[in-house]
């Protein structure tokens, strides 16, 4: 079964990284290896992408034709212009909900046990996953944008601003993915991970300016919605895509909505700064 030639050769025993830079280099390469594993999984089980691909299409059609037919925006303007940024942000969060369950399920697999005994960077397993997630988010955004264009959505501020909006959405997706990974690692079962993340994502994405302006809500709810970080992200996209009607009335809406891009950059960075180390620590 095994040929007689010697199996042990010294060149086959890599040594531990030499210095900080070497260590960081390996952390990046290990993350890429893990992300490659995730992409192979998608190639083998393309149905894993169903929720990333189909859900956005359904949401765009549902809201633009079913709800859009009845919703009249205060101050006028086309509902589809108003809607698309909201759906972009919500879908990014739905991808995160899926991540939490997937991470939780992944941890029950035998191969994780092997990873723990390998000299790979401790951060690589979670970092690699979030990297693969980012590609899922990008795919989902591309499909939604295509759908939106088909139903009449347009951007008005030129390509640079539109690209900035998608960049911001990817950042939101990346931050969400870290949070979801952390939740997935904390949950004892994949079912619990799904329950927790959907229980948070649904109210969080609806009690916001995602689908309707906050101006008509009861005062207390409006305050919650205006300070909801999701509202800032949606508002930032509306601003960058150039929705012609401005609805957040400046100071009355609070700082996040009057400075939506800065507010979104702040909370996503903060979320990554907290969730990433916590997730890595939890995996350890």
């Amino acid at each position, binding site marked *: 079964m095994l040929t007689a030639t010697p199996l042990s050769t010294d060149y086959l*025993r890599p040594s531990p990284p030499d210095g900080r830079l070497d260590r960081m280099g390996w952390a990046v390469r290990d993350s890429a*290896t893990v992300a490659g594993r995730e992409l192979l999984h998608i190639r*083998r089980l393309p149905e894993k992408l169903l929720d990333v691909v189909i859900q956005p299409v359904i949401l765009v059609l549902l809201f633009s034709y079913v709800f859009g037919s009845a919703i009249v925006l205060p101050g006028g303007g086309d509902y589809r212009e108003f809607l698309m940024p909201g759906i972009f942000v919500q879908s990014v969060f739905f991808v995160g909900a899926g991540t939490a369950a997937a991470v939780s399920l992944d941890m029950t697999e035998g191969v994780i046990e092997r990873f723990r005994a390998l000299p790979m960077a401790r951060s690589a397993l979670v970092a690699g996953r979030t990297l693969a997630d980012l590609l899922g988010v990008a795919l989902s955004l591309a499909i939604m944008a295509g759908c939106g264009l088909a139903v009449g959505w347009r951007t008005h501020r030129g390509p640079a601003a539109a690209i900035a909006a998608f960049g911001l959405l990817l950042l939101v997706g990346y931050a969400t993915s870290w949070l979801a990974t952390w939740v997935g690692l904390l949950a004892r079962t994949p079912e619990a991970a799904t329950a927790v993340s959907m229980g948070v994502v649904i109210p969080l994405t609806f009690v916001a300016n995602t689908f309707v302006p906050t101006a008509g809500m009861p005062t207390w709810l409006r305050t919650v919605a205006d300070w909801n970080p999701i509202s800032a992200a949606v508002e930032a996209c509306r601003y960058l895509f150039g929705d012609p009607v401005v609805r957040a009335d400046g100071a009355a809406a609070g700082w996040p909505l009057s400075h939506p891009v800065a507010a979104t950059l702040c909370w996503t960075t903060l979320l990554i700064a907290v969730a990433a180390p916590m997730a890595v620590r939890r995996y350890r």
Partner: protein
Amino acid sequence: MIDVAVDVRGLCKQFGPVRALDEVDMRVPAGSVGAVLGPNGAGKTTLVKILTTVLKADSGTARVAGHDVARAAEQVRYRIGVAGQQVALDGLLTGRENLVMIGRLHHLPAALARRRADDLLERFRLTRVGDRLTRTYSGGTRRRLDLAAGLLVAPMVLFLDEPTTGLDPGSRNALWDVIAALVSNGTAILLTTQYMAEAERLADRITVIDGARVIAEGTPAELKDSHGGTRLTVVVRDAGEVAEARRILRRVGAGDARLSGDPRRITAAAGGSPTGLLALAARELESAGVALEEIALRSPTLDEVFLALTARDRTVPPC
């Protein structure tokens, strides 16, 4: 070069109310094979998980390939290979992809990882199935790939957690051959098993654990000796002569001469000089005219030793 591959002292691990390891000591010299033998739930897998840096011990120390598993886990991980009873492979990847991924995560350069994967597939006769998803593999094939995955780098110490549990005899023998070849190349191996025959065939020294504690330790021969040693068996042709034969055996110095279930069979302890006793007993029985069917020396099997050592747990406590 290190001279002790695995050095465990006073290792303890508790899971809630359950004591998984209780003051465990053991050593595996470099280039040798140590077996940890014990029934299900004895603590074998917990021990392997601590030694491979997957779990942390509550107290005690463990050094693997010269490095402390708690304080220098990374150094240890660079020097070990692991193949486990959990069959840790990614089912959605092919055999080749699994090996290349693990090689990369061992920090082999990409080209070398690929070459090494091809090489291992060939050595383990997996080339034909190398490009199929591992979830389609049979049990024996998965075990072979799992073992190959533990050999991506040339490990100083290889951990095998119940490598043959659930395998058919053919696949088991094939795996034993691979392990023997590794040992002849100088790799130290720590092997856990519930099968005495496996420990006896592969290991230089055996540590028997049961109920989280080490209950015996030694070479296979030492373990046999410590438990009764060689016995003399005599079978008489005529059951009427059995009492006479027993009297003669006692006279020539065979201890503890007992009748067994068979009315014509007597077994007795053969003491310090078994062959001398055998010759003397044969002569005396013949001159007394007792006709024999069989007279022989028999070593206790390690299975008997194992069952005797672990017997105390098998009595069912009263309700």
